[in-house]
């Protein structure tokens, strides 16, 4: 084990999470063609710092910390793309409950919705605020626990939880609005 080259060890740890690293960068990068640059820089930084990684701890969380710092740093160099961010969820409970019922019945034909919203879904995700988007991606796509998210982003666990919650609410509101727009859902079913 001691004789094993560090590069091989580093690459063995990186290989199973390489797609996660790439798609996270792709969703968080401001510039459209920016993900490869971010990944390159993040990986080379991680490799330089690899001596500080404690064996048998969570490599994915460690790598994501570096990745996220790289994203913060490099995003400043490019213009932000995409439209305005999603509005705050409005908390008219009655309207929300009504819409929820309609939404649930719509979800009984998820294939149809999936087809229609495939790309819109990603666009909606891209319009979430940075905090909400990163917490949702880390939780839902990458399987981090709230505790791990709190460590990776250096925020309290309760904050991580509420970002995920709010991201889900906003996404659903947005998708419901899209479905109405597309005639899949009547405004007050």
């Amino acid at each position: 084990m001691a004789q094993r080259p560090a590069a091989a060890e580093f690459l063995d740890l990186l290989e199973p999470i390489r797609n996660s690293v790439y798609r996270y960068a792709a969703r968080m990068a401001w510039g459209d063609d920016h993900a490869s640059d971010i990944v390159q820089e993040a990986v080379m930084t991680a490799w330089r710092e690899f001596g500080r990684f404690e064996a048998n701890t969570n490599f994915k969380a460690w790598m994501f910390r570096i990745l996220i710092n790289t994203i913060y740093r490099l995003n400043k160099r490019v213009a932000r793309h995409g439209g305005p961010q999603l509005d705050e969820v409005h908390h008219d409970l009655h309207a929300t409950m009504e819409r929820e019922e309609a939404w649930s019945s719509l979800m009984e034909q998820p294939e149809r919705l999936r087809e229609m919203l495939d790309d819109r879904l990603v666009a909606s995700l891209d319009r979430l605020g940075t905090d909400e988007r990163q917490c949702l991606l880390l939780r839902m796509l990458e399987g981090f626990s709230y505790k791990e998210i709190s460590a990776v982003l250096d925020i309290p666990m309760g904050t991580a939880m509420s970002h995920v919650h709010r991201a889900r609410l906003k996404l659903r509101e947005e998708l419901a609005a899209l479905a109405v727009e597309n005639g899949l859902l009547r405004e007050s079913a």
Partner: protein
Amino acid sequence: MDCQTARKWMSPYLDSELETAKTFEIGEHLRACEPCRRRFDAERHVDDMLRDRLSRESMPPALWHQLRKEVNRSELLSGFRIPAVIATAAGIMLFAVLYMASGDRSAKPSEVFTGQWAHYVNQSVPSESMLSDAEIEKALLDDYGLRFSTAREDTHRHPVKVMGGRYVLFGSQPALELRVKCCGKDAVITTFLRSNAGKLPRGIQELEREAFGKDVKRDGVNIRVNTVGEAEFFIASEHYLDGLMDAIQPGKA
């Protein structure tokens, strides 16, 4: 538990982040309450849709090969961890780091294509950055689904010879560069994934459109662009290009 409370805890419930007692209470409520059950299921569907959609995105194979190569190479060359270098662009940074690690400070890092075609084609490439023949063959096939044929019939009876290949940044995109020779002229074939073509710098994209399927001259160099399967390549040489073009074949016969 009432509906409002159940829904308040929906997100952490779906994430399996609630303590046992609460999870149990919500489970009980869902068994009894159909609207909530449907509502929770709907949310799970959205999660699944999003996960499905986003999981389709994966690291381009050429980028992974390149990263692996650079990590291995930097360890090999330096024997110790490479120092941080401040540079303006991430791509430049990567190669600046390698360049410093290589100990060769007289030459500029040659791996970044600068848009100077004559220089790009005729420069001499340090042999230590070159891949072995077996690596070239494997990279062509695995990353781009191509093979390179030097059979005389495929190259219009010209004696095309592969001098070497390496990973480069073509504009900002990872690419495999083949250096070949024919009739004493150098030629460069720069191959990347078609899916990355839209991310090339604007200048290269303009040239790409102009040179697609036909020769265009830049700095006295002929340039042509073509695609095979998932791969796209630029061929540049003072030599005429038909024979060279035909040397690129689909990998699987």
